[in-house]
């Protein structure tokens, strides 16, 4: 069994990270009734004897003593991290896993990337190495950050290059929160585009998410719960947005519901690697199956169901509804409509009491309405994990490598150009040592290159699928 380390960068990254660790503890508490430190827990947590001072405290088997998250928390201002350390999760983190500063990055990618990057490079390396040493077999780094700000965006992407150089064999999965249209940070287009270049070049896999979509999903849930239309009540723990029943009680803060969705995404992504099932899917299989060409590693995700009703029996119809919903544009975590764009590959990760026949039936049912690229007409990757998420009897995470990410990127470029043409706020960036106008130009051209690749694939959409002439051999 392998381990993963979560690196949470910036305000957004740390707030999501906090929700993630809380829900992870909740999930493991629900599954692991006996309190034994097993391989599933060890993928995200260390077992430490807190009485031992210094490093010697790790316990590898037996009863759980004290769980410590395999995490590195980075923020260039102290507010968020301090709050975490004073909050109910303070015991889960090691004070040695933090890197903080006081002044913040001022929503400036250049400050985060160039200034703090060089200032903290050594410290970052040291903390990462330490966390890697605590792992028996480190498989993946999960980086959580936002694209629109300064720290998450700048320092978060600086990290990627460091990870690539220092741990070339370990996967880098990045969860990136993209700025929505009405983002209140004026320079977010600059920050995002500059960050995109780094994601293009140094990430193995990116899960883009945008706040607007998360917000829409929450509104939908609230509507359903409060409308009273359903008759029966919704199971509170089953809301994909809630932290009810979490081990550590905390007051719901404004972004909590949205962050919980992202936290659930990460838990479901790793569930088949941690828990048993009849068709397992490890993290290295995600990259292998969903990334046909190195540059095209952006995966659109959707989580269903968003809530479970209190019925005990789940008729087949509801199970099938779960599959249908996964492809609807209302359930995607970014503004995208995969059904009307071209699929390069699609993964369905199912948890709970679902069998292979249910999977097959739904794939057959949904296939005709989806368009797959000509060389991957049956591009489905599936996995079955027996352990359902807390509060649900079954759930589905769909990951799609689909050209529907193109509009998001193109919009971002639009907003960027609107600012850049007027050279608005540019001086804040150019005054940082190491930043020149060419950095901006390179970043835009990197994004344009990516969009062009998606365009070329889209162009093949309406062409008839022809079989290429086969190798002929002398008989």
């Amino acid at each position: 069994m392998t381990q993963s380390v979560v690196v949470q960068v910036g305000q957004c990254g740390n707030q999501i990270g906090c929700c993630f660790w809380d829900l992870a503890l909740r999930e493991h508490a629900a599954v692991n009734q006996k309190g034994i430190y097993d391989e599933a827990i060890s993928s995200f947590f260390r077992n430490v004897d807190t009485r031992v001072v210094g490093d010697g405290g790790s316990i590898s088997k037996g009863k759980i003593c004290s769980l410590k998250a395999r995490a590195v928390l980075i923020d260039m201002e102290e507010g968020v991290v301090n709050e975490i350390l004073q909050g109910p999760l303070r015991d889960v983190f090691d004070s040695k896993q933090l890197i903080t500063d006081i002044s913040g990055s001022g929503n400036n990618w250049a400050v985060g990337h160039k200034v703090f990057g060089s200032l903290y490079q050594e410290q970052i390396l040291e903390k990462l190495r330490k966390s890697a040493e605590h792992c028996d077999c480190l498989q993946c780094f999960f980086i959580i950050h936002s694209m629109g700000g300064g720290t998450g965006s700048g320092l978060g992407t600086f990290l990627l290059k460091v990870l690539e150089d220092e741990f070339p064999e370990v996967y880098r999965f990045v969860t990136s929160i993209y700025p929505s249209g009405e983002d209140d940070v004026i320079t977010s287009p600059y920050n995002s585009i500059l960050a995109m270049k780094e994601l293009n070049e140094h990430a193995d896999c990116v899960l883009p998410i945008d706040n607007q979509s998360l917000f829409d999903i929450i509104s939908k849930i609230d509507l359903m719960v409060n409308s009273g239309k359903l008759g029966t009540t919704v199971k509170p723990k089953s809301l994909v947005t809630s932290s009810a029943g979490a081990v550590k009680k905390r007051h719901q803060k404004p972004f909590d519901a949205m962050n919980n969705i992202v936290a659930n995404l990460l838990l479901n992504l790793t569930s088949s690697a941690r828990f048993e099932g009849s068709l397992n899917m490890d993290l290295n299989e995600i990259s292998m199956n969903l990334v046909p060409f190195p540059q095209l590693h952006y995966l659109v995700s959707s989580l269903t169901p968003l809530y479970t009703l209190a019925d005990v029996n789940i008729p087949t119809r509801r199970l099938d509804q779960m599959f249908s919903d996964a492809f609807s544009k209302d359930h995607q975590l970014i503004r995208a409509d995969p059904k009307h764009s071209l699929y390069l590959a699609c993964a369905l990760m199912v948890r709970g009491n679902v069998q292979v026949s249910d999977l097959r039936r739904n794939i057959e049912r949904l296939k005709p309405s989806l368009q797959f690229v000509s060389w991957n007409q049956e591009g489905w990757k599936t996995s079955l994990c027996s352990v359902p998420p807390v509060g649900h009897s079954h759930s589905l995470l769909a990951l799609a490598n689909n050209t529907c990410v193109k509009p998001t990127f193109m919009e971002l470029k639009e907003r960027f150009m609107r600012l850049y043409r007027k050279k608005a706020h540019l001086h804040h960036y150019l005054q940082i040592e190491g930043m020149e106008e060419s950095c901006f130009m390179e970043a835009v051209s990197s994004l344009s290159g990516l969009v062009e690749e998606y365009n070329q694939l889209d162009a093949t959409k309406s062409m008839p699928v022809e079989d290429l002439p086969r190798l002929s051999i002398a008989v």
Partner: protein
Amino acid sequence: MSIVTVQLGQCGNQIGFEVFDALNTDSHCPQGLCSKRENEAYQASCKERFFSEEENGVPIARAVLVDMEPKVTSQTLSKAAQSGRWKYGQHSCFCQKQGSGNNWAYGYSVHGPRHEEAIMNLIQKEVEKCDSLSGFFIIMSMAGGTGSGLGAFVTQNLQDQYSNSLKMNQIIWPYGTGEVIVQNYNSVLTLSHLYRSSDALLVHENDALHKICAKLMNIKQISFSDINQVLAHQLGSVFQPTYSVEGSCHYRRNPLGDLMENLVPHPEFKMLGIRNIPQMSENSLAYSTFTWAGLLKHLRQMLISNSKMEEGIDWQVRPPLSGLPTFGKVSLNRELHFNTSIANLVILRGKDVHSADLGGFKDPALYTSWLEPIHAVNVWKTQRAFSKYEKSAALVSNSQFLLKPLDTIVGKAWNMFASKAYIHQYTKFGIEEEDFLDSFALLEQVVASYCNL
């Protein structure tokens, strides 16, 4: 003589468990429909082939479990131990921490060499426990990374190290609508490598097994466990002991040798399939009676029309009239209706087995012209019934049955290869484009050979 089983990857290990369980359950089944002495001889023969003895009487499977991540093997070991009727050897398992990521190249070029010594040592220990070795039975899937890539590597090693022993690979053909996106690449690479190093490939298609579960067994929510149990039943009906020439209480000693001798006359044609009749849920079994004539008539038509189960058989398909060219020579663009065979082995078990008439299988029209029916058909009859079926028949055949699926997989892999999609994942670990081309060339040759039967 004994068979050493090597179970590779998630699929291989999950299936392996069901196979040993089915073999063990059947050999202890009280409804053998024969004398006590007969039953004991059957049990002893089964044990010799598949189990070794432990001190407190619990048989240990002659198997080596290999996987590159620990979840499945630990589950398999504990399931067996919990049954109380048999178990795996304590030290028969080799596993690592990080899987092969569905990457054939990783399984073959990285895991293979790295763990070669450890795995071959485990196999050696198991071989040493056998009084005499009939050969190896390797269970693996084609779609993933460990079963397929590491499986190909291990088979090659077995060929080098045990060149006098036979190797039969049990391969799982994945569902047509993907379980794994790169399954066609993995399958092409696996098949081409196994064709060079294995003696026979026993193929089971997930789609076919799934249909059997749905239509014949009437299972509503089909799980992989159900599918594996159908497979185990089919394998059991072939590998359980059968009479040798001396008849009653004397069972064949060399299962793999006998199978290969009858079914693989030419190294170009190695692909074998199993058809089984009857196959039904236990509830239905209580209400059914069979005659040998009825069973064999259906089985023959299943063979000719390339049907995998006794429901939905196409009775329109007829063998070609002698003297006229067989339909098999028509190009693949048209539906290949008639399934030409190279060799067939019919295994009959149960009541009144000696009265069964196999004339239908000896019709020369069923076979390709370069083998006389007398050499192409073999029949093994055993009185001892199998797994609660009063009468059961299994047909192992070397025929064109896999031609269309093989052609389909090669075609899809070729299309993907032309766009170079996913190739960087393989070249990263040392499988270059030339290796792909070699594999394609070999399989096109196999397709052509089967097509021209």
